[in-house]
């Protein structure tokens, strides 16, 4: 890995990754986008496609950020940034909001991750560092509650290690919950029969992707 001198393929940008996720969200889907990278997905949903964004703090039908100066601090998203409400949206309290997540009513949630294991285990809430202050928020609820949990992350750490691993070394968020991973290198389905590569970054071969990735891959 560290030996690669020059990449012959073109890594997907964060926006390209978001576009890949957005492409797979059908009209009418109820979707929760986790804080961080996944929030970019909202920018790539086609204008005409009605998708219902859920925010854990009691919003369904969440709209884009308000214009500068129009912020309403009673209307924020999970990342505590000001948002808007679409026509047809609704407010509700926290137990009802998490009932939507935990009761299997969301079609898709998209989460960031530190690591994803080949069996779908997810680690995204805690580095496990002894001096780190933990914070979990709604990650564990989303991971196991949505009908399908997608992960969106860089394929490798800054040190070049694969974040798709045989077994997570970081503390788990959920067990065997991830269905699909979108990275800057590929889109990979996690199935009972193993990891299946749905698509790859331009110029990347399956052999190269396998070389970079920590666990066995198959063509889809």
């Amino acid at each position, binding site marked *: 890995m560290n030996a690669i001198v020059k990449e012959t393929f073109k890594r997907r940008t964060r926006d390209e990754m978001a576009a890949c996720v957005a492409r797979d969200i059908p*009209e*009418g889907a*109820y979707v929760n986008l986790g804080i961080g990278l996944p929030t970019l997905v909202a920018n790539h949903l086609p204008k*005409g496609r*009605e998708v*219902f964004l*859920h925010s854990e703090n009691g919003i*369904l*039908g969440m709209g884009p950020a308000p214009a500068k100066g129009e912020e309403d601090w009673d209307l924020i998203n999970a990342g505590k940034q000001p948002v808007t*409400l679409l*026509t*047809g*949206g*609704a*407010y*509700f309290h926290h*137990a009802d909001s*998490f*009932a*939507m*997540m*935990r*009761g*299997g*009513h*969301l079609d898709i949630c998209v989460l960031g991750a530190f690591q994803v294991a080949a069996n779908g285990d997810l680690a995204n809430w805690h580095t496990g560092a002894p001096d780190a202050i933990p914070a979990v928020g709604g990650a564990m609820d989303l991971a196991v*509650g949505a009908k399908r949990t997608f992960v969106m992350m860089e394929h490798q750490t800054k040190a070049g290690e694969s974040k798709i691993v045989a077994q997570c070394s970081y503390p788990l968020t959920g067990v065997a919950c991830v269905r699909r991973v979108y990275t800057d290198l590929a889109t990979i389905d996690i199935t009972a029969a193993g990891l299946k590569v749905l698509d790859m970054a331009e110029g990347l071969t399956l052999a190269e992707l396998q070389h970079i990735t920590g666990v066995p891959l198959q063509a889809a």
Partner: protein
Amino acid sequence: MIDKIVASVADALADVQDGSTILMGGFGGAGMPSELIDGLIEQGAKDLVIVNNNAGNGETGLAALLKTGHVRKIICSFPRQADSHIFDGLYRAGKLELELVPQGNLAERIRAAGAGIGGFFTPTGYGTDLAKGKETREINGRMYVLESPIHGDVALVKAEKGDRWGNLTYRKAARNFGPIMASAAKCAIAQVYETVELGALDPENIVTPGIFVKRVVRVGRAAAQLKVAA
């Protein structure tokens, strides 16, 4: 564009399968989805399990459905009423299975299904015949019974207004089981008296957000009110 409003009761119910568990709103007549029940009778699905607070009154609504013989089992809190003779007859003849559930357990078990809860401990029913054979536990000096969620394949709900996203409001005490039943079924179908434009319902006052609702069908008010009062 998402439009959950369907043209007719028949369209709304077309895919109800034999053997389905149907969560049916209503407390007596208030909130009873009479048109959807009539539609279900017409649709003809058999071997049904019905979850409702009661077991039908007089000859209409749920009572009429029971009369078809298409209901295998009913889960309810209060079957016996002055005019529950259709249920009474079928039950006494051994043609209808009854699971009697304290009303609060019924509501909480439905709510649990919608909220993804696998089971919960409640003090209601402890030490009574209705908790016989159920797991019990002492928690902080009080005795509790373990109860399980009641999931539905279909929910039939009577609401007041609905929009194309499936957002619903109710009217007075006709709300009763509607919101929790909508949340606990794979396919919630709401009959409403008024379909409104998106945005016509105040986002602060939507009682059932559209995420819980698959189909909305408008029915006439006059006919329904007559039936409720009957």
